[in-house]
């Protein structure tokens, strides 16, 4: 996860000011603190790593390439519609897993090789809100 790792690094660097405090803690607390800091950093990374330029690429990918089965308007084709109305009952985690891993037994292929988890999260979030147009 190229972008995740990059984002994580930045988060750890910016939290360097906390290091003296961490060093004073017991090893258990230190571990706990580190784990929660890492989790926090990861969640920030997820929210922050999809830059504007990449978002534009993802919009095109979804409209054009997902659109070849789901329709450019996402109202469905050989694949089901991806409108907020059609997706509202479906949990976001499941949608993300479908994007990244595909659905065996159906024509839905895995897209995990072409995007990070954070990017898949971003796509799911945008789909649930009503996906942006290209222009």
């Amino acid at each position, binding site marked *: 996860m190229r972008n995740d790792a990059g984002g994580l690094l930045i988060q750890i660097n910016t939290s360097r000011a906390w290091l003296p405090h961490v060093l004073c803690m017991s090893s258990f607390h230190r571990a706990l603190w580190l784990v929660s800091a890492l989790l926090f950093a990861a969640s920030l990374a997820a929210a922050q790593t999809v830059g504007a330029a990449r978002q534009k690429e993802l919009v095109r990918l979804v409209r054009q390439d997902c659109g070849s089965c789901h329709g450019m*308007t996402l109202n469905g*084709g050989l694949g089901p519609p991806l409108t907020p109305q059609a997706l509202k009952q479906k949990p976001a985690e499941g949608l993300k897993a479908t994007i990244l891993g595909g659905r065996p037994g159906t*024509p839905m292929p895995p897209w995990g090789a072409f995007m990070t988890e954070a990017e898949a999260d971003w796509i799911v979030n945008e789909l649930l809100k009503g996906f942006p147009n290209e222009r």
Partner: protein
Amino acid sequence: MSARSAALAAITLTALAGCVQTELRGTGDLGVIIERAAGRVQIVDTTRETKLGAVEGLGDLSHASVVFSRDGRYAYVFGRDGGLTKVDLLRMRIDVRVVQSGNSIGGAISQDGRLIAAANYTPGGVRVFDAETLELLADIPAAYGDGSQRAKVVGLEDSAGNQFAFSLFEAGQIWVADLSEPRVPKLTKFKDVGRQPYDALVTPDGRYYLAGLFGEDGVAMLDLWHPERGVKRVLAGYGRGEQPLPVYKMPHLEGWAMAGSLAFLPAVGRHEVLVVDTATWREAGRIKVAGQPVFVMARPDGRQVWVNFAFPENEKVQVIDVETQTIVKTLVPGKAVLHMEFTPRGEAVWISARDDSRVLVYDTATLELRSLLLVDNPSGIFFTSRAFRMGL
């Protein structure tokens, strides 16, 4: 001719030109290019390799296909949103337009040119229209199971006797509709033809209907001369049990690539073109290619086969030499190559590169680029020579 009669003739000609406004021309070298995002088609001239004009207002053309009237004057454009538009290529305007369903995949024109059939996803079925007026003549719901479910219709093809053959994606069925009485279609249904037929074609003689299967390795074949013999499976298990590769865009079977007795088909989930001997319908070879093939199309003389690919290999086009069954050239025409169309006798091929907003014209003898046209997000390219070929 005296000076006076010449002057008179000139005046008469000017007056005539004033009435007609444009010079007379035929339509045999015309075509249309879909501008998928703009809901517009460009009308092109394949002799001069130029755009002639555009027609707007065709709705959602994100998956659009076109058939032509037998006089080559009208293009029937099937839009994704169920729009069916009859475009006058000479006047460059819409003649008639109907929105005939919620979600459509394509269509066909009957042998006699009088009927237009549209294949629909939502509601799943086929609708048949009068080619002149687009008046609805017949509605064929693709009902299956207990009758309450409707399947998406794919691979709608015309054949002899004003028949249309088509496949039901979810139901795994092939139906043949005889429209010799257009308002009273007679249906013949073939069940359990294989899992998830995704597209189909008919051979140029209109005899064999072949539906590619997505859900299993193989092709379902119906001999339309002998429907009583039922649907047979050909190329069964061509994947030899290997795990299929992911398919990022469905292959299309419409461009039947037939060269001599050999046919060339895209494999599904394999980066291969399958070669089939049409005398025995057995595999006669396979050619490794750059990615998941989408269109596998033979040059009209059958000496070359051109192949484009699904994402992420969709910048490439490969040219196969039929005699040696080897790739002789890999071209990189541009970003997101979606379609290819040969000129009527195949000296050139037009290729759409969607993300570059260009159409490139290649010389098929030298494999060099000869022209470039700016077209907004081009997808399908369709020339009027299709009017005279079954299944196109």
